[in-house]
């Protein structure tokens, strides 16, 4: 599998919604590795990388949230300055359009998560520059 699964949750801009979502996951003992929120004045999309995305989706849906599992690409980098910029350059040199991106530290490495509609092209870059893809099982 070339991608990992991210939880995308629709949240109204109401006080307490973010807490509700995170609390549901906590109660299921699901570990959150990374989190980002994209917002407009009316609503936001909460994006999460978790230890068990399928279970996460199930419990959030049970609590009434609108949740999708989104396929995103993810690669390891070394955990030092300049590694993120260097990695990103490899993608932009090939004109790969990145919808959004975020990163986190995982054990002693860095992880970049991004969504692109040019997945085939992105994979070629990964292979050519010998980047290491993150696998879903790594995140459990």
């Amino acid at each position, binding site marked *: 599998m070339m991608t990992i699964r991210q939880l995308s949750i629709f949240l109204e801009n109401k006080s307490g919604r973010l807490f509700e979502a995170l609390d549901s996951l906590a109660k299921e003992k699901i570990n959150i590795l990374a989190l980002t929120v*994209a917002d407009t004045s009316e609503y936001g999309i909460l994006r999460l990388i978790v230890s068990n995305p399928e279970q996460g989706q199930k419990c959030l849906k049970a609590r009434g949230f609108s949740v999708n599992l989104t396929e995103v690409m993810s690669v390891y980098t070394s955990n030092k300055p300049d590694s993120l910029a260097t990695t990103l350059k490899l993608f932009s040199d090939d004109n790969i359009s990145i919808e959004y991106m975020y990163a986190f530290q995982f054990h002693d490495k860095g992880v970049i998560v991004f969504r692109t509609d040019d997945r085939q092209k992105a994979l070629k870059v990964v292979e050519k520059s010998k980047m290491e893809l993150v696998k879903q099982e790594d995140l459990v």
Partner: protein
Amino acid sequence: MIWNKTFECMDRDEMRRCQSKRLVDLVERIYNNVPFYRTKMQESDLAPEDIKSVDDLKRLPFTHKQDLRDNYPFGLFAVPMPEIVRIHASSGTTGKQTVVGYTRKDLATWSEVIARTLTSAGVHRHDFVQIAYGYGLFTGGLGLHYGSERIGATVIPVSGGNTARQILLMHDFGSTVLACTPSYALYLADAIEESPYKRETLKLRVGVFGAEPWTENMRKEIEDRLQIKAIDIYGLSEIIGPGVSSECEHQCGLHVFEDHFIPEIINPLTMEVMPEGEKGELVFTTITKEGIPLIRYRTRDLSRLMYEKCKCGRTLVRMEKCSGRSDDMLIIRGVNIFPSQIESVLLEIKETRPHYLIIVDRVHNLDILQLQVEVEEPFFTDKISELQTLTRRIECTLESALGIGVEVKLIEPKTIERSEGKAKRVIDKRNIQ
């Protein structure tokens, strides 16, 4: 001031005779020329000769907005198309508009009833009438226009919108009369206060307001802030447009021009005619129209009739200011909107489910319509840009279908109350009744 004393101050018995004669002519005409009415009458075993006077009016069948829709566009017209010189339209309950047609004589009748309307409001030939009702298929603009010309006033056909320009022209041209919706009048009052033109520099004296319901409180506010007399006028395009009834200077009910439109009040559930003076649904029969005459048209507006002679000298029956509707129609910025129209649009957009809520509010005196739509999974994509595009698409489709701008708000699933019976789809936060 009374435009047409002959009819507006007619003895009640003479009025009855006049109405009866016109009703008999009308029934003969539509029986012979409108298949829809002929069939309806035959179904009730009625022939034209059975209708001898206004006492027989209650034997005739009702007409509903659905009938105009079912016969869209010209199926209810009683004359050949070459005799129709004007078409107007207003909102239908779902996709199609409600279409009406006028002969040359109908246009003359329309000008006559508007002339009466304006005169009863104190408007005369030396006035400058600024018409801020929309011109076009809507009957407001052109209706007021031809009636104002009839009385010889100077007509300024500004149409709706462009508030800064409305005020500029009001100032530069010295408009003395304002014709628009009551909520727009309040909106203008705000705008004038913030504009470079102070009220003292304007010559406004009288306003004729209709196309939507408004309270005595709103009237008081308009009169105080614009320093004018605010007169209530009433009409609907199916009957003729504006000009069905109008208040006089005493503002104690609207005089119905009953030599043209016979009013009745019925119980909306049983459809029985109510005893005199009691509240119910307004029904009109158009006894002089040629293009699209209607028998006992159910307006869905709630009111009551008062037959006592008015202080102004008119003997015409008065209807009370409308106090609500017997259906779910909304009037937003003067435009008729049916929740079912919104529902049909949503059902056509595959990403939306029919779980929605319509919130109507009035902010800074302008009506706003907000549609809250639940975000279901297929609808919810991971990209903000896609959600925004979809929101805009729903807004555009709705605006196109309804004729007014709607604000769409995405909300979480299951937040709209589900009910076993008919779901409550509309929350109207305005205080207009």
